[in-house]
């Protein structure tokens, strides 16, 4: 039975270098899981039954997706401002900025390219 000794050593060692919140607690995992279930079930229900207009549903499910991503970040990935001396959150913020620019930029540019195509333009008549 080497497990208990492993535990004592490893546990101490681990917490010497990492912050206490790196693992989370059982309660945290349950809260995260239950919130995720609710935030998954509502969008699926909305799309399957369509009780309100499509535009409203689209906005609602996007909000739920954003909220659920934050829930996962906090309760499962144990993200906080202090992890790794603040470098984790800095890397995350940088990534989110790049992702938002890339996504919104691509969609915006390509949508307007489509909009501004001349209506009579037909590929079969070209060159």
């Amino acid at each position, binding site marked *: 039975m*080497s*497990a*208990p000794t*492993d*535990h*004592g*050593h*490893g*546990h101490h*060692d*681990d917490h*010497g*270098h*990492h912050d206490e919140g*790196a*693992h*989370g*607690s*059982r309660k945290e*995992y*349950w809260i*995260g*899981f239950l919130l*995720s*279930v609710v935030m*998954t079930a509502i*969008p*699926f229900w909305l*799309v*399957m039954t369509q009780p309100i207009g*499509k535009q409203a*549903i*689209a906005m609602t*499910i*996007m909000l*739920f*997706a954003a909220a*659920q*991503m934050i829930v*996962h*970040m906090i309760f*499962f*990935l144990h993200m906080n401002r202090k992890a*790794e001396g603040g*470098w*984790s959150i800095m*890397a*995350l913020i*940088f*990534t989110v900025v*790049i*992702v938002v620019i*890339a*996504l919104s930029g*691509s*969609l915006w540019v*390509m949508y307007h390219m489509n909009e501004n195509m001349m209506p009579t333009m037909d590929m079969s008549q070209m060159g």
Partner: protein
Amino acid sequence: MSQPAAYTIDDFHLAEEPHHPEGSSTMLGFWIYLMSDCLIFAMLFATYGVLGTSYAGGPTPRELFDLPLVAVNTAMLLFSSITYGFAMLAMVDGKKGATQAWLLVTAVFGLAFLGIELYEFNHLIHEGAGPWTSAFLSSFFTLVGTHGLHVTFGIVWLVTLVVQVQKRGLIPANRRRLMCLSLFWHFLDVIWIGVFTFVYLMGMLR
């Protein structure tokens, strides 16, 4: 004009490397890898966003997607997330057997997810909606397939760690590896939120 003899090239770098405990920077390094992986997925989402309505006369999302199946798939991934959390809690408590057991439960949910996804892909291809049919389907298969590949490698990694823990126990190195995989696994779940919202649910609204 002559410099003192002691002023040598050695003065331009530290004579002794500062000591860092082994693996002290692994978690941050792995997090930065995940962020770069996030950018890969952002590009694939952007591609899908641009090409997602180019059906080329082929089938549309509403004709293809089976929402109850996607809901089951999402549930599998969500269950695997909390069971991985239990594995981490068992690890913190130093319970080797429980850690391995929860890891294997996680692997089973992961395999169920993959199985459903492969069934869906197979079904789509047999309906004549393969990735070659339209730009919409090309970008769909690339995005969802890349996520599926990540899950596949996550399961390979997971099984490897079960064997590692069996052989060496919950040593600090294995704890670190388990924490990295924890980040990876939960990260894939975050990506899946994007996939089921933007690809499947928004697809059904079109």
